[in-house]
């Protein structure tokens, strides 16, 4: 069985607040770029499934050549088949075009059982590409999966988190699964893995190598959404006011006074 992970290179979560609007425009964010933390759970799950079901785990990423860094993390964790999709014509694609490119790459790999994705990326946090891939391939999409209970060639049984409770879902394969952080604990790469990853080549697979691409739908020109303005949210009008002095009872009373005066209560 083939398990294909779709991964993205994103800023390190810790540095998200350091990203400036003008850097988003230029494309050079000036922060450390890493495998999207959500996608680490997908890579880990693919490795676990590969072991459990004697399958094949593949990781795809779409981006600039720098996106190979995301693949390196996956390889260091144990993935043996990384694929970098990169081409100028892909740049600036919206979510549905991104899903289309990934879907065509998935179709080319063929005979897949599960497509695994993180719930969303830490930068765009839209969670759109997973559903987009499912629609492109005409297969089901199950999100917030916190456990893959069972799996065979035809169907999977998974647990899906809803706000109201946990559903046990039997889904026909192939399917796209977006994973919750509760599903596993991504392994840390070991030294051998890191060394292997740094020595591996990550050739870019371009538009010419993906059959069936609808080129007219790709890139910035065809994108249905534009970020017409990017701004830093207004800084707090004033710095925090520390309620000083006295006992907790006095501080509490003073705070309550402020909140009532502000009409916050």
């Amino acid at each position: 069985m083939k398990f294909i992970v779709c991964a993205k290179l994103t800023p390190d979560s810790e540095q998200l607040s350091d990203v400036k609007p003008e850097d988003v425009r230029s494309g050079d964010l000036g922060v450390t770029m890493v495998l999207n933390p959500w996608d680490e759970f997908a890579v880990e799950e693919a490795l676990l499934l590969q072991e459990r079901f004697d399958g094949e785990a593949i990781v795809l990423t779409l981006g600039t050549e720098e996106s190979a860094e995301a693949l390196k993390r996956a390889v260091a964790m144990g993935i043996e088949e990384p694929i970098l999709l990169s081409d100028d014509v892909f740049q600036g694609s919206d979510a549905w075009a991104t899903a289309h490119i990934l879907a065509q790459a998935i179709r080319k790999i063929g005979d897949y059982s599960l497509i695994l994705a993180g719930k969303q990326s830490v930068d765009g946090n839209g969670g759109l590409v997973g559903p987009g891939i499912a629609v492109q391939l005409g297969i089901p999409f199950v999100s917030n999966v916190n456990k893959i209970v069972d799996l065979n060639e035809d169907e999977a049984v998974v647990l899906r988190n809803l706000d109201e409770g946990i559903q046990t879902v039997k889904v026909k394969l192939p399917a796209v699964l977006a994973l919750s952080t509760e599903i596993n604990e991504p392994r840390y790469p070991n030294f051998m893995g890191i060394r292997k990853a740094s020595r591996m080549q990550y050739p870019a697979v371009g538009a010419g190598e993906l059959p069936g691409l609808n080129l007219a739908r790709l890139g910035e020109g065809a994108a249905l959404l534009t970020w017409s303005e990017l701004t830093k949210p207004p800084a707090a009008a004033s710095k925090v006011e520390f309620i000083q002095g006295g006992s907790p009872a006095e501080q509490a009373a003073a705070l309550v006074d402020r909140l009532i005066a502000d009409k916050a209560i």
Partner: protein
Amino acid sequence: MGILVYVDQYEGVAKPVSWEMLGKARELAGRLDGQVAAVVIGQGVGEVAQQAIAYGADKVFVVDGPDFARYRNAAYAAAFKAAIDAAQPSIIFAPAVTGARDVAAMAAAMADIGMAAEVVSVDLDADGNLVAERPIFAGAIVATVTFKGKAQMATVRVRSFPMPEPDASRTGKITPLEVALTGAAAAEEIIGFESMETGELDVQNAGIVVAAGRGVKGPEGFDPIRSLARVLGGAVGASRAAVDAGWIPYVHQIGQTGKTVRPDLYIAAGISGAIQHMAGMTGSKTIVAINKDKDAPIFSVARYGIVGDLFEVVPALEKAFRERLGK
């Protein structure tokens, strides 16, 4: 130029965010001189459809039947797509909540409509097209989104728009939609369900949230937090650290890997203020932080701070609120 609103419901009860979106749709439709339609999907949802009219819909598409009794992503997406085809709206709103956000994404992908996810504010441009604002990069940046194409869709965060007043005298048309499920739309079967409903107020719908983190040191540490929340009529939230430690269920988790909340008042006790947590609550109107460490990052987003022991301050706050609010 019409607007379509996805009314999300669970077991025949509509989620409040649905009415918030309907209220905004009514306002925008007034400026566009257009109609507001709603879509309700489920089983036994006739009453929800009636409520949708009271909250502002001129027309309600209802997909009601056993196939839709329980949430199934692709089935609900097929139903939503059918409503989009029937209504031919120029603007579409759906809630950015678990479940509905994925239904919306699938329907938008199927229709090849541009979708802005997790918006907190919307407006119209000079041509009557939707313009939306949404946080990206964990809220460090706000993006203004403009659209191309005949329709524009947005998923909307809870409490982004005010709750409108229902008007029971409003009239509207209820239109049942038959949706046959084939292929991927019929590929999910729900073979089990474990309810997590506690009867507690959901953090996303609450006007007041009292949240705690590592500082409460254990599950019992949430007792004073719950107590304060009860006096304030608020909900209890938690940081990822507290949830991962097993002190409180995941449903309370606020932050990048949990829920995003926009209450009027957010009280953070024993929460240091990791970026990932702040991503989930900086939309709060007023933030109060209580922490032993005066340099805790949470104070950088707080309006008021108390440096102290939460086990003394939180009960003192509860007492002070009781007295001032006459409880």
